[in-house]
């Protein structure tokens, strides 16, 4: 299985500093086609028929989202490009902005036309500030080329908060509030930024739009599986010899990606989809990468047999504990509970019943949390316990052993005996 480069076709071939090189590669043709030969409704239909779904991780059908916003009543409408790529192990949006910012801007122009937005935001994470200048330059050139004649795009910078990549938290952040998740409904396409209908799409999703409009929905939907059309960018990191970005047709196998392309050896486990993603043991390496099986943000972190599962899970949950916005109780207290137990396990202080506490904590988080962070935080916990239970159980028996050793002083008499 080889890569299928359609979204990244321009990457490395065009000069991201010069829009003329983009124009030479069919740049802006999709936008012209949409504006001259299609109605906004037809654009939405085309995206729907193509089967494009959100590439940020949640996988919501893009056309449906646009349709809801297009139909919604509102004095004005907003488009937001989510470039707050904070998911652990994900760096595809950085790659796209660095190598082909024009496809993103063209996709935004088409999207704004389809839903009737005159104002758009790109929310760029603070960690990517080094991309700002290139992006601004691309924006200026796009304006000069007439791409943005009816659309005002403003870049807003984040300030270091993972949760701001969650759509409702992102809107709060743009509004100048703490990046806490919102209660839904109302959903953003009806009542979003400043209370107006709003579409929030990931960088990769928007960059796919020009391809679909230019080549047609039929061309696009021929690629992929029943539920997952087109291609996906995967970010491979960890124990592989060739980490990096790989573009594969949806439905490609994890094995082809991790072993064939990225050169993984002695693989024990792969986490797909970032910190809240699935944890897959090597026995499941043949799984297809698609929304109906496993996908997420496209982060693929590979672990070989030298790695420790308890350490991995502790670090993952520690990350989520730091990044939870703390607004809703199931997420805030649930993660706190998970980290308390995992902290015991990594420090050799585990007690019988710890694994059951981990399992019991997961259910309310998954069902009652306000946003995706809390809802999916149990995913790596459940998977780790299901596939690597012996690693966790072993840590408890080691803890018991350590305690028993500590309680015996060097004289050979138990500590309690001396204290008496």
């Amino acid at each position: 299985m080889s890569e299928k480069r359609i979204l990244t076709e321009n990457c490395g071939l065009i000069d991201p500093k010069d829009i003329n090189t983009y124009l030479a590669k069919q740049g802006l043709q999709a936008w012209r086609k949409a504006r001259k030969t299609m109605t906004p409704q037809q654009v939405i239909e085309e995206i729907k028929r193509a089967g494009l779904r959100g590439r940020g991780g949640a996988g919501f059908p893009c056309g449906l989202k646009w349709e809801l916003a297009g139909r919604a009543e509102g004095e004005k409408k907003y488009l937001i490009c989510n470039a707050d790529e904070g998911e652990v192990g994900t760096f595809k949006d950085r790659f796209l902005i660095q190598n082909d910012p024009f496809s993103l801007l063209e996709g935004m122009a088409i999207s704004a036309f389809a839903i009737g937005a005159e104002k758009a935001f790109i929310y760029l994470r603070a960690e990517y500030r080094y991309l700002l200048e290139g992006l601004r330059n691309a924006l200026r050139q796009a304006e000069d080329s007439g791409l943005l004649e009816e659309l005002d795009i403003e870049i807003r910078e984040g300030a270091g908060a993972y949760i701001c990549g969650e759509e409702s938290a992102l809107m709060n952040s743009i509004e100048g509030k703490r990046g806490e998740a919102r209660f839904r409904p109302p959903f953003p396409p009806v009542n979003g930024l400043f209370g107006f209908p709003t579409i929030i799409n990931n960088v990769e999703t928007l960059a796919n739009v020009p391809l679909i409009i230019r080549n047609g929905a039929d061309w696009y939907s021929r690629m992929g599986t029943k539920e997952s059309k087109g291609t996906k960018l995967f970010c491979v990191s960890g124990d592989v010899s060739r980490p990096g970005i790989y573009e594969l047709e949806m439905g490609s196998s994890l094995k082809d990606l991790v072993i064939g392309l990225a050169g993984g050896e002695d693989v024990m486990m792969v986490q797909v989809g970032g910190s809240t993603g699935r944890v897959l043991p090597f026995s499941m390496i043949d799984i297809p990468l698609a929304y109906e099986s496993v996908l997420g943000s496209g982060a693929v972190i590979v672990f070989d047999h030298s790695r420790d599962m308890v350490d991995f899970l502790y670090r993952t949950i520690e990350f989520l504990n730091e990044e939870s916005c703390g607004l809703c109780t199931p997420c805030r207290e649930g993660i706190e509970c998970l980290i308390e137990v995992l902290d015991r396990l990594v420090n050799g202080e585990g007690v019988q019943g710890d694994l059951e506490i981990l399992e019991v904590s997961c259910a309310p988080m998954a069902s009652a949390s306000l946003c995706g962070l809390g809802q999916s935080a149990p995913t790596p916990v459940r998977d780790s316990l299901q596939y690597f239970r012996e690693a966790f159980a072993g840590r408890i028996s080691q803890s018991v052993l350590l305690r028993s050793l500590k309680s015996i002083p060097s004289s050979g008499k138990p500590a309690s005996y001396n204290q008496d």
Partner: protein
Amino acid sequence: MTGISTDKRDTLLAMITEEQRTLGFVSKSSMFSMAQWLGIPVAEVYGVVTFHTFFSVKPQGKHVVRSCKSVPCHLKRSEMVASWIGDYLGVNAGETTPDGRFSFELTNCIGACDQSPAMLVDDVLYGDLNQERVAKILKSFD
């Protein structure tokens, strides 16, 4: 949902960013004046400042070194990177050098997992770090 919303409230994040970048921290007095200008409680401004890891209410060093500690960098021994930085600067993570030149922080994923272990110094990304490279990079800021 929280506080009084005004039509200029959405300028708050950019104002704080500007303050952080020019002064190296967000002072109490600047938070008061932002709150006054926006007509919102100071607690609201303080709430936004402390929500974000790139803002500090205490003076930071001239340069901020952020070493990534998330899982992909951890797999490439990011603890060693943190200890090299700590040794070079003579401070622990979360501290500022006495001469005020550097602040050293551990950060969550900075999206450079293909070149892990990685760090940010101010706005510049440095990947594929080793001891020699860390020393060389930090020296260039001296």
